[in-house]
């Protein structure tokens, strides 16, 4: 694994943390007061900051740091959550996401957004939330005294003067052995407390570390070692006097004791204290053990237990242990310097303990490269085809109706189906990430339009194929924007209507008969049918006198080129209308519909297939070719009668279906399978719905049947083939092309009636 791979992992992790961050903030916004939620939010930002630091992503680190500081205040109850604070935090989460994306993909984000939020977060952290317009900090006063050098024109340059030379001389007298140039001598007095050992530090290691700096002269004072019956095996009794001769400075010497300085007495003085080294300690004569020079070679030994414990092995350790353990337990509480923090810590620890017991085991997951899953899916597709072929050849060869073969075959079929389902389940992902992204979209657009919106999501864990999820975001974003921009009223208007000023946008996902159904419901004004109707007439979509049902009017908004917004707003406009949404959903093999109640709101419902890897299709024959037509596109099939067919111009024909006329499209002719138009009476018409809501009757020669087929892309080998979406292999081993219904309909436009005229004709 190299750094780039770790960086990829980091960005993946960021995605997860950002989702966690947003959902946590939203939960807090909804009144969740569980401290663990705040902790999780804090950790998310903290993790991003930590990783970003490792990769030198300074912008990200800087912003995450400010954000984290404010969150820390919330976490430690120094700062109360409020709706203003959460608003700022949600915005900050969005900026953090943008910064992460900018760090990953290059590019930059608007600095002013960041700096405004940094100020706001800072203000919250300091307990002084900025008023709506924050006053700029007072300008720094110009330095009152100009630098002397700058004004002094006498040419006099101050010369730095020090007494170092004298000191050196004085010291040199004391320290005869400081002869080696550039080296200095320090005297270190080091007396560990028992805490030092309790925390896993080790005097021997510290001395060894010190020895790396230069030459050591070490003396261990063992005078304080009590008689063995009074000795606490976990106590600290020794102290060391060390003379270090090094080319490093005092800071380097001090740095050696960095981890230990709290748990020992440490005194570092420049110069050598020869007296201390030569003279025995005051009590030296009376003690059974005199100070002995410390043998450095001892340092090289592998200490198994802390050195002092080793010196006292004769003491029964077991007996002394309870006291020692008690001491260790007491240790964390010893300095009562921060009583409040301590209390919080204790409370947190308690909380943790109970939380630990309650936390269920996290679901076990592994990360698998998507390519591997796709390869597996492909192979299973082959397996399905192969199984079908095998079954067919067994039937054709009539292997004597051997029950063993038939039984085996049946089991194989069942297993294959199960494997297929399981493999598809691997690709299935909850829609949650997409839904979560919508939260941000809603916030942004609510901000832009000055509306008050609350997004409620349901069924976030509904699973659907990853490809479907990836393609879901765009139409969903557009519909959400549309719902807030056009659907919901302004807070004032809502209040005037007696509604809650806060509009509700409900985003729901659920499974229904093998498809996923996603609903976007707003409690806004509903579709203004009068306006839609007049607009449609104005745009020539319908005749002025056409008589349309409410439902038909509602569906006009999906018509290409239809837009009720007077001017293209920056928000839901962007030059695309609901027709684009409809088309992208149809490309996924889905449908979209709308129901609307004036004054109560609108519901957009889209239904999508759970997977794009298999499809239910109708197998048809066209000019001796076998084609598959996606079942989702087919509204109905019919057998044309002679009296239903009407010529329209030299080459076009219409078919009468009950009381409407529908253009008849000869698939074989469009695809250039045959030069002439076939006689409709010899074939079958498939009534299909295409983009824009227009219907067409596709003429094929015969229907063979209906089956689930595995989709095989053609694009890798043949690039885009007009009129053909993909291919599949049928049970008999033949390759069949899957018809791209929309493309065929579009191709037919050139010679056929436009759908607008169809509508007039139907009206």
């Amino acid at each position, binding site marked *: 694994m190299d750094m780039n791979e*770790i960086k990829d992992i980091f960005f993946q992790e960021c995605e997860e943390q950002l989702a966690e961050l947003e959902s946590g903030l939203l939960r807090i916004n909804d009144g969740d007061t569980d401290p663990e939620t705040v902790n999780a939010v804090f950790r998310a930002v903290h993790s991003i900051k930590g*990783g970003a630091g490792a990769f030198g992503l300074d912008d990200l680190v800087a912003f995450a740091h400010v954000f984290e500081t404010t969150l820390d205040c919330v976490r430690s109850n120094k700062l109360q959550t409020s709706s203003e604070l959460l608003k700022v935090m949600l915005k900050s989460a969005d900026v953090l996401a943008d910064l992460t994306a900018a760090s990953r993909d290059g590019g930059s984000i608007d600095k002013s957004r960041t700096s405004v939020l940094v100020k706001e977060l800072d203000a919250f952290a300091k307990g002084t939330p900025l008023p709506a317009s924050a006053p700029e900090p007072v300008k720094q006063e110009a330095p009152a005294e100009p630098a002397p050098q700058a004004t002094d024109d006498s040419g006099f340059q101050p010369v730095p003067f020090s007494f170092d030379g004298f000191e050196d001389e004085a010291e040199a007298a004391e320290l005869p052995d400081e002869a080696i140039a550039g080296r200095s001598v320090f005297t270190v007095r080091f007396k560990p407390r028992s805490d030092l050992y309790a925390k896993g530090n080790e005097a021997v290691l510290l001395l060894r570390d010190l020895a790396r700096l230069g030459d050591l002269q070490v003396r261990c004072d063992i005078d304080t070692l009590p008689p063995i019956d009074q000795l606490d095996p976990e106590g600290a009794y020794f102290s060391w006097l060390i003379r270090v001769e090094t080319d490093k400075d005092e800071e380097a010497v001090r740095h050696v004791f960095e981890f230990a300085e709290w748990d020992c007495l440490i005194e570092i003085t420049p110069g050598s204290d020869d007296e201390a080294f030569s003279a025995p300690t005051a009590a030296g004569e009376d003690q059974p053990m005199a100070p002995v020079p410390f043998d450095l070679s001892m340092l090289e030994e592998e200490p198994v237990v802390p050195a002092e414990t080793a010196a006292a092995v004769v003491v029964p350790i077991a007996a002394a242990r309870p006291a020692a353990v008690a001491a260790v337990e007491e240790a964390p509480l010893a300095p009562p310097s921060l009583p409040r923090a301590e209390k919080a810590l204790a409370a947190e620890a308690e909380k943790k303990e109970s939380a630990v017991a309650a936390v269920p085991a996290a679901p076990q997951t592994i990360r698998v490269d998507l390519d591997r899953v796709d390869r597996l899916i492909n192979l299973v597709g082959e397996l399905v085809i192969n199984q079908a072929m095998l079954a067919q050849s067994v039937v054709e060869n009539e292997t004597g109706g051997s029950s063993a073969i038939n039984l085996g075959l049946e089991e194989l079929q069942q297993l294959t189906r199960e494997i297929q389902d399981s493999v598809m389940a691997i690709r299935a992902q909850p829609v949650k990430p997409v839904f979560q992204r919508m939260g941000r979209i809603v916030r942004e657009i609510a901000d832009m339009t000055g509306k008050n919106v609350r997004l409620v999501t349901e069924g976030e864990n509904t699973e659907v194929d990853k490809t479907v999820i990836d393609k879901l975001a765009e139409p969903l974003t557009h519909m959400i924007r549309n719902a807030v921009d056009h659907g919901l009223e302004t807070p004032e208007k809502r209040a005037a209507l007696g509604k809650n000023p806060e509009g509700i946008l409900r985003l729901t996902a659920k499974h229904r008969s093998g498809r996923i159904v996603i609903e976007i419901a707003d409690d806004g004004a509903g579709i203004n049918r009068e306006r839609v109707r007049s607009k449609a007439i104005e745009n020539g979509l319908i005749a002025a006198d056409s008589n349309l049902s409410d439902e038909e009017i509602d569906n006009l908004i999906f018509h290409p080129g239809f837009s009720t917004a007077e001017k293209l707003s920056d928000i839901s406009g962007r030059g695309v209308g609901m027709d684009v949404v409809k088309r992208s959903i149809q490309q996924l093999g889905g449908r979209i519909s709308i129901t609307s109640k004036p004054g109560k709101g609108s519901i957009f419902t889209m239904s999508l297939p759970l997977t794009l890897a298999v499809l239910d299709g109708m197998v048809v024959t066209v000019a001796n070719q076998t084609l598959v037509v996606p079942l989702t596109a087919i509204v109905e099939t019919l057998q044309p009668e002679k009296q239903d067919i009407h010529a329209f111009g030299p080459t076009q024909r219409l078919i009468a279906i009950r009381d409407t006329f529908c253009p008849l499209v000869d698939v074989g002719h469009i695809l250039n399978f045959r030069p002439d138009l076939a006689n409709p009476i010899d074939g079958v018409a498939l009534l299909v719905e295409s983009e824009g809501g227009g219907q067409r009757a596709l003429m094929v020669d015969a229907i063979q049947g209906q089956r689930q087929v595995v989709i095989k892309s053609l694009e890798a080998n043949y690039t885009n083939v007009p009129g053909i979406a993909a291919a599949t292999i049928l049970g008999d081993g033949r390759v069949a092309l899957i018809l791209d219904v929309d493309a065929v309909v579009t191709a037919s436009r050139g010679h056929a009636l436009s759908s607008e005229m169809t509508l007039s004709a139907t009206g």
Partner: protein
Amino acid sequence: MKKKVLTVDDSRTIRNMLLVTLTNAGFDTVQAEDGIEGLEVLEESNPDVIVTDINMPRLDGFGFIEGVRQNDRFRAIPILVLTTESDAEKKNRAREAGATGWIVKPFDPSKLIAAIERVTA
């Protein structure tokens, strides 16, 4: 003999960086994602030194260190804390909980190794 390091960190990024750095420096590395898992892995892996993060779900670094220090088998094991900043308050709390030393994130591989070497024999 190779020294064994137990790392405890909830960030996959940091876990991977630690793994790469420590493996390259010739350490045996075992990893855990939070304090609870850290205590479990500790029992079975018997490491020579522990490197732990502070902010973690389920059981944070302070709780983890206390847990290690309460364990008779491991109470003298060196524990290094990964802190994002040289925040004195956090450092002190880690120390009170029984941390041996600390490494300031973003860590530089040579400093990490030096710190580990300073606390291991």
